[in-house]
């Protein structure tokens, strides 16, 4: 069953076609990676899905419902969640309070306290819980934000470069975490440049180029595609 369906999604900024009639179907339960050179329209596509940008034309269907006209917060209530490219934590607040804000919409009282503790353990941030989030290392901030996004128990998790700035070891751990979340039933759509991560997690890969879907398939099919090598992977691995 399709969880997310994009139909002919267009977005212009002035004369610039950032996404050009994008069609994409995401099956429930899959881990799907979105790759492509800078400026391909990947982050814009995320912002369209999240309702931060209005598409010029086209429709967004989520779990069978047309959500194109919904405000961002309402889309989150439907079961979407996101981790941004630049870590979007509440820098001036403590790590614990960051998680409390994420969880308090759906949890109350003792249950809230217990779930924050559980999440702190899951993220390996127990020792840092009283620290100001702005003082965490880059990797820890990434994890904290992933934790906040995951805490909403979304049907679809959007990850915009979840491993940017991470060491190979941290990247691998993040990959394992994404697989664990997926095993629990979460569908994941990730923008990623790190091909080791893509190979580790993705069942299907979509290549975006100049605002259009350029190629789609398994990671092996994509890597073997000479056209993709010409526009993207060739440069990355040159």
């Amino acid at each position: 069953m399709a969880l997310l369906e994009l139909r002919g999604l267009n977005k212009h900024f002035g004369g610039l076609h950032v996404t050009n009639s994008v069609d994409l179907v995401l099956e429930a339960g899959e881990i799907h990676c979105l790759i492509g050179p800078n400026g391909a329209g990947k982050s814009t596509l995320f912002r369209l899905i999240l309702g931060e940008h209005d598409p010029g034309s086209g429709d967004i269907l989520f779990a069978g419902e047309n959500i194109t006209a919904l405000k961002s917060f309402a889309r989150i209530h439907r079961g979407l969640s996101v981790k941004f490219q630049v870590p979007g934590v509440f820098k001036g607040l403590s790590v614990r309070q960051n998680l409390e804000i994420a969880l308090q919409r759906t949890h109350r009282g003792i249950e809230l306290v217990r779930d924050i503790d559980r999440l702190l353990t899951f993220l390996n941030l127990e020792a840092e819980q009283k620290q100001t989030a702005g003082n965490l290392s880059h990797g820890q901030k990434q994890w904290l934000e992933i934790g906040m996004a995951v805490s909403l128990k979304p049907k679809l998790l959007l990850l915009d470069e979840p491993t940017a700035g991470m060491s190979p070891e941290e990247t691998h751990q993040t990959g394992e975490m994404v697989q664990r979340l997926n095993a629990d039933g979460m569908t994941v759509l990730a923008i990623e440049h790190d091909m080791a991560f893509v190979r580790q997690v993705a069942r299907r890969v979509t290549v975006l180029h100049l605002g259009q879907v350029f190629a789609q398939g398994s990671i092996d099919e994509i890597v073997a595609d000479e056209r993709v090598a010409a526009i993207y992977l060739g440069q990355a691995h040159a």
Partner: protein
Amino acid sequence: MNGLPGFLHRLEGPQTVGRGPAFWITFAIVFAIACAYPLFSDGYTVGNTVYFFVWVFIALSLCVIWGYGGSLSFGQTAFFGIAGYSYGILTLNFGSAYGFTLVALVLAIVIAALFALLLGYFMFFGRIAGVFLGIVTLAVTLMLERFMAQTAGPEWRIGAARLNGFNGMSAMPPLTIPWPGGDIVLFADIGLYYAVLGLLLLVYLGLRILMNSSFGNVIVAIRENPERAEMLGYDVRKYQLITFVIGAALAGISGVLYTVWGQYITPSSMGMTAAALPLIWVAVGGRSDLTSTVIGTLVVLAAFQALTIYGSQYALVFMGVLLVLTVLIAPNGLVLGAMNLISRLAARCNKGDV
């Protein structure tokens, strides 16, 4: 603080400085001194202290909207003026019998809040943010000042209440509490002092609870990162609007109490100087905490009044210098900086004991 009803736990929390027995004992002592103070002072000085207390509410309104919510409103005086004028118009028309002044007090605050609801709706749902919010709110308060200043003619009246242009309205009745055996009239000395002190206590504690509640969590989250807050499922604009309306109601309390205190209200209470001063009190005190806002406002007001003896222009220049120094030395506020220093020292001492 175990054994207290649930919401009282919120008196302490991450959004407010001050916790534990040491803080609350100090708080109780300060409050006891404030209660006993009129017994050792004359009516004029007590009345003057009421004047200081009156301004604390508008300072708290900025603290909530700007310090906690992150939206700089330059026009809290608009709500101050609307509430003040509303109280005047209502009581000059309907008098003070049957406790109507208390009804007028509440109505005036509600009118200010409704105006904020309308203005805030267009601002927040029109996606006006940052510096533009300050510009729009400043423009609104200056327009109101200009408008009220030209209402000198006899045609500018609402019922029995003449608006009186630049001279403003006066002679509205003081707060009057109906009482068997004779109404209690709260003139601007001991009677009004206790009423305002009581209200200040309630508002301060109420705001502590509100700021440490889940609502407070969301508004500081919006200050820190509105996009992330929205992506956690919070309707950011709705929360900003509610915060703005709460702030307007607080500024309205100041406006009504000011009118009650002096029995007059003039357009200049919505003018440029009036709009700028609360920003200075709050910035100097420390906008992101309720306690530092209250202390900062009282200290700066007292200093301002002491300087006014030598000329009000000098006092205004001093205010400007004070603001510049605060921004350079302690951008989060002088009082808040001192409070944080004290709590750090106290924590270090405790650690040393163990």
